[in-house]
């Protein structure tokens, strides 16, 4: 009895368990995946914004995928300030040139990378944005400079459809 020999019964036991586990996983996955963004949510993936009325030094906030997007028409001072920053001084080093293809226009998600609040315009120690929830300061390029947020505000995929229209997404 105590002999450790693989029997037909052991094989059946292992095979049944394995098939059962695969079956259970196949049933569980749809139950989990149903919570992911559905087709109607994904369909709202892009939005077009008319920015002709925006003057330098002002910010337009639009809703894209339920999140605010800041479109900032920067002044020359702001651009100079953003470009003069040394990479060593940044928590999340990114060149302003890489964040704003057209230096006058900064387009980014208006979502603090700490816990998702909306930072306030023209506030904070770096003349950019300040998040009121937990005190993160962003510079004129939307880069994190001080506070608990780990990353710069995210730049989404966008393009100028024409001189006055930005397509986000």
């Amino acid at each position: 009895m105590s002999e450790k020999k693989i029997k037909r019964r052991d094989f059946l036991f292992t095979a049944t368990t394995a098939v059962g586990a695969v079956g259970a996983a196949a049933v569980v996955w749809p139950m989990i995946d149903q919570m992911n963004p559905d087709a109607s949510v994904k369909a709202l993936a892009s939005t077009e914004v008319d920015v002709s009325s925006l003057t330098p030094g002002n910010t337009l906030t639009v809703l894209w995928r339920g999140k605010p997007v800041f479109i900032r028409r920067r002044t020359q001072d702001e651009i100079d300030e953003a470009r003069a920053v040394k990479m060593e001084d940044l928590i999340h080093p990114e060149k302003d040139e890489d964040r704003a293809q057209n230096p006058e226009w900064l387009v980014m998600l208006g979502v603090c990378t700490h816990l998702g609040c909306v930072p306030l315009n023209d506030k904070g120690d770096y003349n950019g944005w300040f998040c009121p929830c937990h005190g993160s300061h962003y510079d004129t390029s939307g880069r994190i400079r001080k506070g608990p947020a780990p990353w710069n505000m995210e730049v989404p995929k966008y393009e100028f459809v024409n001189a006055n229209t930005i397509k986000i997404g």
Partner: protein
Amino acid sequence: MSEHDYRPKSKVGQWFNDRLPLLTLANHLTDYPTPKNLNYWWTFGGILTFCLITQIVTGLTLAMHYIAHADMAFESVEHIMRDVNYGWLIRYIHANGASMFFLAVYIHIFRSLFYGSYKSPREIIWILGIIIYLLMMAAAFMGYVLPWGQMSFWGATVITNLFSAIPLVGEGIVTWLWGGYSVDNPTLTRFFTLHYLIPFLILGLVVLHIWALHVPGNNNPVGIDIKKPSKDTVPFHPYIVIKDGFALLMFMIVFAFFVFYAPNILGHADNYIEANPMVTPAHIVPEWYLLPFYAILRSVPDKLLGVVAMLSAILILAVLPWLDTSKIRSAVFRPLYRQFYWILVADVLILGYVGAMPAEGLYLLIARVATAYYFLHFLVILPVLGFKEKTLPVPLSITEPVLAGSPNLAAARNKESKLE
């Protein structure tokens, strides 16, 4: 009478009980031998049962009028407040009931901490309690989201974003939780579903909590093992039922005060503004019962470590029975622990206070010191104290201190030491 030889008096009762021994269970619950020295800190178990049932009943009735949809939720809550017969009353009981539930649970937890109720052989009762507490926090958080006000929306955003601190999969988990790219209608409907489910999970766990309690029986203010039934016990009914009932009435006075005289004092005015994904309120704070943990989250300057610290602050309680190395249960006989206990109480209250204040300057410094002390208490002070502390002599029975000075006492002590 012991439960084993219980037999219903009537023939019908016997017939029924032989097939489903519900009457045996009822007899066990009424005759259940209880330490006769239980003080009013022991009445919060009954009060908590009352709170749970209140939340379930008022929640069910609110669900008959509430609409879980991002476009209609806020209005449907106003509809409950203005149009539904007694809707204001039911909603205020439910909203303040959550606060009362936490008030009672905190007293219940701190009673356990003082009298060592979490120690062997009651570890499972304690861990079940911690799970219930975690589920309560989840239910309260999701319930707070349902009115779809500004605090609902931004509270949901901040709390769900805690998961984004998880490396690699964090962002995916948050999107999955939201069912979109931000807190929106899919988030609201699933929160409503879970908010409806969790109280019943809690109810099931409460049954296990009480079941586990009835195996070793109640701890007591002296913290010693007692024989049951014995001279040290009284039957649950009527002695404890009356005491619990009186305490419950006192508790309901406090409850009624909030419901009728200050129904919004524990809430935030911002939540009477409909959710707006474009504007974050200037000052986001969670409900008062979560403030100490919020303070711990904010006191750590790193996002991931802040979340880890906050979760650890709760989960550390689950291993408390093994962190506390002292064999003596009750703080009555632990002169040093008693002092550290009150320092911990003050520490948690301070954390709660700074959690409500802006996270800057002196407040942040205080939060950091208090957070460090919180962990120090559980990870260093408690384990060391068990070895270093000189405890006071523990009586042999609940009756003994009453007999102090009587010759019987010396005789009893003598007898006990011979037996050992």
